[in-house]
Every structure is written in C-alpha cells, then in structure tokens.
C-alpha cells in the first residue's frame, strides 16, 4: 500500500504528545524549565501540524494512514479529513491558550500536570483521527483518564466531590460504549467505520434491530460526553469545580461527543444507508432542543460565573445536536461555524472568569444576586468612594474581554456567534418543502438562548465591573491575559475572514454528506471486492 505524502502527519498528533508526556514522567516535577519547554514545544508543534493538515485536507481530501501497514478492514486506520483537521486545530488552539494560562500559577498546583495535559491532547487528537470504533474507545479512555487527573488538579473538596460524580458517570458511559461496539461487531463483523458504512445496507431484517439497538447504546455513551439533556446534570458542577485551564480544555471534550455523533450519523446513517437512513435523527433533534431549553434556564438561574459558563456549554451542545438532527448540509455548515466560535468563546470565558474572580471575596455573586431581590445590601458603606478616578487598566482590559465574551455567547453582531446563528437560521428558513414546526422551535430557541445569555452576562457584568472600586484589584499577569486576548482576537478574525471560513465549513459539511469519498479513501480496493456482507450473522 503506497503512502501518500503527509500521511505521517496523521500519526504524529497522537504519537508526539504520548512520547513527550511519557518522557516528562521520567523527571522530577521540580525541573520546571525542562518540562515547560518540552510541553510548550509539543503543543506548538501540534498546532503547526494541525494547521498543515487543515490546508492539506482542504486541498486533497482525506489523508489515510494504515497503522502497521495492514490494509483497511483488517488493520487500524487513522484518517484525517476536513472535519478531523478542523477539530485538531481547535484542540491545539485551546491547548495553547490553556497551557500558557496555566504557566502563571496553575502548573504548580499539582503533580505531573504536564504529562496529564499532554495525554489529554493525545486522547483528543486520537479520537478525532481514528477510523475504527474500538480504537475510538481506547482514545476516549485515554482522554477520560487524563481528564480525571485534570478535574482533580489543584485538589480541594469541591474538586474531589465533583470528581466523585464525574468519574463513575463516565465509567458507566464507557461500559455502554463497549456494549454498543460489541453489538455492532456481533451483527456486522467489522469495526472499521468505512467498512461498516458499506455493510449497513445489506444487514438482514432480524440483524437490523440488533444493530440499531447497538448504535443507540453507543450513541448514549457519546451523548453523555456531549451532555445532552437528561444526561448532563454532571456537567455544570464538574466544569465549575475544575481549575480554569482544565475547564477551558474541557470545553473541547464535550465537542468530542458532538464530533463522533456528527461523523457516525452521517457516515453510517446517511442517505444511502438503506432502511436505516436517518436513524436516531429525531432523538438528536428533540434531545438537542431540550438541552438548549435546559441550558437557557440554567444560564439565567446561575449565581456564579463558572456555573454560567457551564450552562453555556450545554446551550452550545444542544444547538449543535439539534442542528445535526436536521441532517441538512447547509444547517450543518452553519453548525460547524458555530462549533468553532462557541468552543473558542467558552474557552476564553473560563479563563477570564478566573482572572475576574480573583479580586472578589468568596460568595460575592450570591450576595450580588440576592441584593437585587432584597434591596438594601452591605454595599452602602462604599458610598464615600472617590468618584471619577481613572479606571485601572486591569479592570478595563478584563471588562473589555468580558464584553466580547458576552457578545460571542449571546450571538450578537459583529462577532462569529452572530454569523453562525444567522447561517443556521437562514438555512432553517429556506427548505424546499416549507418550514417545519421543529425548525421554528429551533429558531425560537436559538434566539431565546442568545437573549438569555445576554441577560445573564449583562447582570453578571454589572455586578462585577460596575461596582465601586474594590479594595484589592485582581492582580493579573500578562501571561494570563494574553491567551484570553489571543482567543478573542481569533474570534474577531473569524468574522473578518468570514467568507473563506464559511466556504471551508460548507465544503466540510458537503463532504460529510457524501461519505463515499471518505469510504473510498479508507478502503483500499473498490467495495465490490470486499468480503460478502454479514458473514457471521445467524451462525
């Protein structure tokens, strides 16, 4: 099997963080300069590779590397197409921001932070690149194991308690994952995603029920990660308890669930998959709508900023899930744009929260909210504060960043949150056969969730930034503010270069809706030469 150029780039995003992380385990944590240099070098290399892959896949389509050089249905393949490359770039960007942010303080808060962080990247990259269901499980577990470490990073009762809920939920989800994978293998006799796509139309009647049950169980495992209602009660608590850099990275982890559902639903249950076409789409649609509604209520009810960010993750997940449920290429193109912008926005918001909250006393949010309800608060003593003092630069910069985050999360122009929602809504409103009731529901919920985010962010912003000057201003290092600013600048760039970005998203979405190119790239011979379908069923 000839290897196309750049195919090594498909393996390195998995291999490099694994080797760097394992290498760093050999040294004591006190050798910080070495560890920071190696980790940062690895992350920057990952970013460079991801961008190269993005350009290459955009030009020549899917790049496939058969691991161990076994041909596709027998060996394990790693596949990079536009969607994978885009997710890799997002991962690397979030990793850069979170890691640089952590360099100010958080990397000292617990042992072996660097290795755990790199292993998380390995798991994420592997999950985005693999073309095999069981390997997906392995990379999921690598990612989750690292995330258990990151949840607990920094220790403290809140984190241990959150971990105590987060870990069993994911362990049970992993069990469901295994049950689903083995059911699918039992029916079809393959775990290669491309091979599976070719075999699904030929599954017999009695095997189909079993296969669809397997796919549904598998989907539950992904929906736990993607945090669809009612599988998402763990998320706000866990994300708000985690340290800021960890929470910022976790913004990517829910997107892994979204990515797998998007990939598998269009690859396995696309238009040409026979009787199973569109399997589960209604569940995704209504589940997604319920998730947006739940997230919106949560955003309004949140009394602290980390929880607000946690519920924003839910709104983002719900929007993406219901867009996937529609299965329309134009809607999914908008949804992909939304995925990129909302992931970046939530990452920046999690990092920003830590900086903003630094200067505040614990429980300040709760008091601020109840003050609105009960009228006279403790704030009366602040009246003699000097009026008209210059706003210190820190607060101004943080306030500006908060303002941009609010615009992004609420989806207001001119930032990409608005463009993404606009793209989705315009695609929802121009179908050939009239606008369906669920399309109206999604449009209404998109608008409503944006409005709720605006109200909640405005309320939080007013009680945080428009208060009499606090005695202790948050001391923010440049290295902490730079990642937040960098991500927000990227978001602005997504607007400025909106046309090429949207062109890329549209092509990605169209490629996902025509899975034959993906299957053709992975499977070596024409599909006709493959083994007879369903060899094992009914034995």
């Amino acid at each position, binding site marked *: 099997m000839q290897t196309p150029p750049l195919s090594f780039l498909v393996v390195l995003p998995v291999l490099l963080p694994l080797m760097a992380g394992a290498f760093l385990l050999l040294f004591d944590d006190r050798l910080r300069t070495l560890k920071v240099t190696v980790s940062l070098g690895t992350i920057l290399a990952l970013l460079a590779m991801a961008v190269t892959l993005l350009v290459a896949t955009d030009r020549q389509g899917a790049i496939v590397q058969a691991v161990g050089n076994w041909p596709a249905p027998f060996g394990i393949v790693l596949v990079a197409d536009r969607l994978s490359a885009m997710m890799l770039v997002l991962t690397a960007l979030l990793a850069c921001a979170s890691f640089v942010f952590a360099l100010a303080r958080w990397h000292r808060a617990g042992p072996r932070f660097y290795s755990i962080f790199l292993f998380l990247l390995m798991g994420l990259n592997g999950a985005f690149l693999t073309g095999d269901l*069981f390997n997906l499980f392995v990379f999921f577990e690598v990612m989750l194991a690292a995330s258990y470490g990151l949840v*607990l990073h920094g220790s403290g009762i809140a984190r241990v*308690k959150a971990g105590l809920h987060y870990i069993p939920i994911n362990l049970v989800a992993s069990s469901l994952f295994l049950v689903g994978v083995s059911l699918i*293998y039992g029916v079809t006799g393959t775990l290669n995603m491309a091979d599976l796509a070719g075999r699904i139309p030929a599954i017999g009647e009695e095997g189909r029920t079993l296969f669809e049950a397997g796919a549904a169980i598998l989907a539950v495992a992904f929906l736990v990660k993607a945090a669809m209602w009612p599988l998402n009660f763990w998320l706000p608590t866990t994300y708000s308890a985690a340290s800021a850099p960890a929470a910022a990275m976790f913004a990517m982890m829910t997107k892994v669930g979204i990515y797998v559902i998007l990939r598998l639903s269009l690859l396995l249950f696309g238009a040409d998959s026979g009787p199973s076409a569109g399997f589960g789409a209604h569940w995704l649609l209504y589940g997604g709508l319920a998730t947006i509604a739940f997230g919106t209520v949560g955003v309004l009810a949140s009394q602290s900023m980390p929880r607000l960010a946690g519920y924003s993750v839910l709104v983002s997940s719900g929007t993406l899930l219901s867009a996937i449920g529609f299965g329309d290429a134009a809607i999914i193109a908008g949804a992909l744009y939304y995925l990129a912008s909302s992931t970046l926005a939530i990452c920046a918001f999690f990092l920003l929260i830590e900086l903003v909250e630094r200067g505040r006393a614990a429980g300040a949010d709760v008091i601020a909210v109840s003050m609105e309800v009960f009228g006279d608060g403790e704030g009366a003593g602040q009246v003699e504060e000097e009026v008209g003092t210059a706003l210190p630069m820190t607060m101004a910069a943080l306030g500006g960043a908060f303002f941009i985050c609010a615009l992004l999360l609420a989806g207001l122009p001119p930032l990409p949150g608005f463009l993404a929602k606009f793209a989705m809504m315009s695609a929802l409103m121009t179908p050939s056969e009239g606008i369906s009731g669920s399309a109206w529901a999604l449009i209404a919920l998109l608008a409503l969730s944006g409005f709720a985010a605006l109200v909640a962010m405005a309320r939080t912003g007013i009680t945080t930034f428009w208060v009499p000057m606090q005695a202790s201003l948050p001391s923010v290092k440049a290295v902490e503010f730079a990642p937040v600013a960098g991500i927000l600048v990227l978001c602005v760039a997504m607007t400025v270069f909106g046309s090429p970005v949207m062109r890329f998203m549209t092509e990605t979405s169209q490629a996902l809706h025509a899975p034959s190119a993906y299957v053709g790239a992975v499977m070596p011979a024409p599909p006709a030469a493959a083994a007879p379908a369903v060899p094992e069923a009914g034995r």
Partner: protein
Amino acid sequence: METILAIGIGVLGGAGTWLLLRPRTYQVIIGLSLLSYAVNLFIFSMGRLRPGAPPILEKGVAGDPAAFADPLPQGLVLTAIVIGFAMTALFLVVLLTARGRTGSDHVDGLGD
C-alpha cells in the same frame, strides 16, 4: 450454555446497576466492577460461543476459519479488562481522597 451465560450477564449487570445507585462509595465501586464483568462477558459472547475452538491458527497450517473461534472479541475483552482495571484503581484513589477530605463515604460527601 447460552442460557447460563445470558443469566450470568443479567445477574452481574443487574446487581452492578443496583449497587451503582446506592449512596455509599464502596457500594458504587463494587457496582462498577460487577458492571464491567458483565460487559466483558457480553463482548466475549459477541464472538459467538464455540467450545473447543482455539482463536489462533496453528503454525504453518492454512486452517479453515470455520474451525476457529473469532479472535477479535477476545482481543477486545483483553483491552477492556486492562482499561477497566486501571479506571477502577483510579476511582478507588479518588474515593479514598473523598473519604479523607469530607470524612464521609457518602457519594455527595454528606455526613451520616
């Protein structure tokens, strides 16, 4: 044989699920272990139950695939066992930390 295996998986899975929903962390971890046993047996059964059929070809012999058990689910089970074991160990550490921090073995860290 299928019936016995099915009952075994059912009992393990049922007991695991029940224990998982109990309020004490020790019950939860035992429940998780039982559940993972059930899942491992389930994966194994997806290769079909074949008594007396080895999963590995003999050296130098081409062999008839019909005379051999499916090796892939056995490989999957091995991977699942290793990963499940590591995760259980990790959870045990968190559980002990939670016990030390909160002074309670309730899953919500509540007192008795």
